[in-house]
């Protein structure tokens, strides 16, 4: 299958700091990729690179067959903070991208009914149809995040970028939303890239889990989760192979973290012990 997103030897630096370097990653069209890594490894930089909000310092970011040189409009984004506009109802919030993205922004009046229908469809999938006319402050955190998810999908993007979208939710709500996301994805089959700290989340949702190294970040290892059949559910969590994978990923990340901790706490004592 052809790759919708491909990063080739990408590096990105902010001034003197190198955030990512030698980053190579392929995301086939229609697949679900997850990116995990120690904190500060450049996961958010990856988001900005793929969406074209930031341009690679060296290397190439290829999206849909073209090396990108600015924001790509085939993308939808959702973040840890749902960022709903408090003066708009849920429905109006969900429809915000249609007022901006081309060509829909010019068809707002002509296709109002169709667009509203589209938004209501999404709200129905995430179970918010009866809250379409509520304001964000009338929704719980999980409901706001569902609305944010709908907003990121309303313009039917071919690529969905998720930056720790469930990071601020409680464990029950989070797992509930994993299934909501899986349901939408199985139905629509867009390409998705999920950046997360949660290893179970990554393995549960993604086809490929990319482990990033310490800063400057690059892909240290890629784990394919094809062994776990979809739709995944309760049975996936109790699958011993799934839990083994989680443990392996944890070990990977710990290995990536090691150098920092050695330098910070281990360094003063180790040389003295070694000398004796």
């Amino acid at each position, binding site marked *: 299958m052809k790759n919708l997103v491909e990063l080739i030897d990408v590096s990105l630096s902010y001034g003197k700091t190198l955030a990512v370097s030698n980053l190579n990653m392929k995301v086939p069209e229609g697949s679900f990729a997850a990116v995990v890594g120690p904190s500060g490894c450049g996961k958010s930089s990856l988001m900005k690179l793929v969406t*074209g909000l930031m341009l690679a310092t060296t290397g190439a970011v290829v999206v849909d067959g073209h090396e990108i040189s600015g*924001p*790509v409009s085939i993308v939808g984004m959702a973040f840890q903070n749902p960022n709903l*506009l*408090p003066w708009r109802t849920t429905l109006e919030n969900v429809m915000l991208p249609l007022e901006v993205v*081309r060509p829909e922004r010019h068809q707002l009046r002509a296709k109002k009914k169709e667009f509203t229908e589209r938004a209501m469809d999404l709200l129905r999938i995430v179970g918010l149809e009866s809250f379409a006319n509520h304001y964000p*402050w009338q929704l719980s955190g999980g409901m706001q995040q569902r609305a944010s998810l709908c907003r990121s999908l309303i313009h039917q993007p071919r690529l969905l970028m998720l930056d720790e979208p469930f990071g601020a939710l409680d464990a029950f709500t989070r797992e509930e939303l994993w299934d909501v996301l899986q349901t939408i994805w199985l139905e629509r089959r867009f390409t998705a890239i999920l950046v997360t700290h949660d290893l179970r989340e990554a393995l549960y949702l993604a086809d490929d889990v990319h482990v990033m190294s310490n800063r400057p970040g690059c892909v240290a290892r890629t784990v394919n989760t094809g062994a776990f059949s979809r739709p995944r559910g309760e049975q996936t969590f109790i699958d011993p192979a799934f839990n083994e994978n989680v443990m392996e990923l944890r070990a990977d990340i710990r290995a990536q973290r090691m150098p920092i901790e050695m330098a910070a706490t281990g360094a003063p004592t180790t040389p003295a012990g070694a000398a004796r």
Partner: protein
Amino acid sequence: MNMMERAGPIVLPLALLILWELACKAFDIPPFVLPSPSMVMVALYNNAFVIWFHSSQTLYTTVVGFAVAVAFGAFLGILVGSSRLAYTSLYPMLVGFNSVPKVAIVPILVVWFGIGTVPAIVTAFMLSFFPIAVNVATGLATIEPDLRDVLRSLGASQLDIVRKIGIPRSMPYLFASLKISITLAFVGSVISETLASNRGIGTLMTQASANFNIPLVFAGLVVIALMGIVMYMMFAFVEKRMTGWATRGATFGIGG
């Protein structure tokens, strides 16, 4: 709101007035030092026509100056809040300008425009546009970066972001500043009238104090205060209708 909260705004001023009245009687304070509230009321009643003549002028210059300040301040705020270039190049100048005592500018205005209406309008404007500009700029400059990214990734221009998010988002800031600015606008026009005018509450008070008619001076002060309160309440009301989303859950507004 319970009974106490409802009664508070009426009971407290009344109590203060009674205390003031009693103090004047008890210590036998001469009216040209501190007139009692009852004497001020009498002065208000006896000079109702004169006071109306002058206060209508003050209200007129204040409202015109303030209206210009809202338009100009909002425009400036949007400019400074949405463009880095505008921010870095305009902000120091604005701060500098706002630090200049406006009393010192009135004589210059008189040289340019003569005495009377125009200097009062200009002074009211100069005193009141700055808080509006700063507040609107703050509302725009504090858009969440993630939200900005969401729109930018969809191909939104800076103008789109300002229109869809920036301006609605800065509305509560705008209204907070209007409540401050309207009172400053009154200060501005009264300053100008005090220095250079034949008409206006400022003029009336200057003349009255020259004649040692201190109760009339106090009557002027009362009228200005009342006009300020009425205008403030008007904006508080409009604010509540337009930006209720920003203060929901609180039974009181966030005062300016």
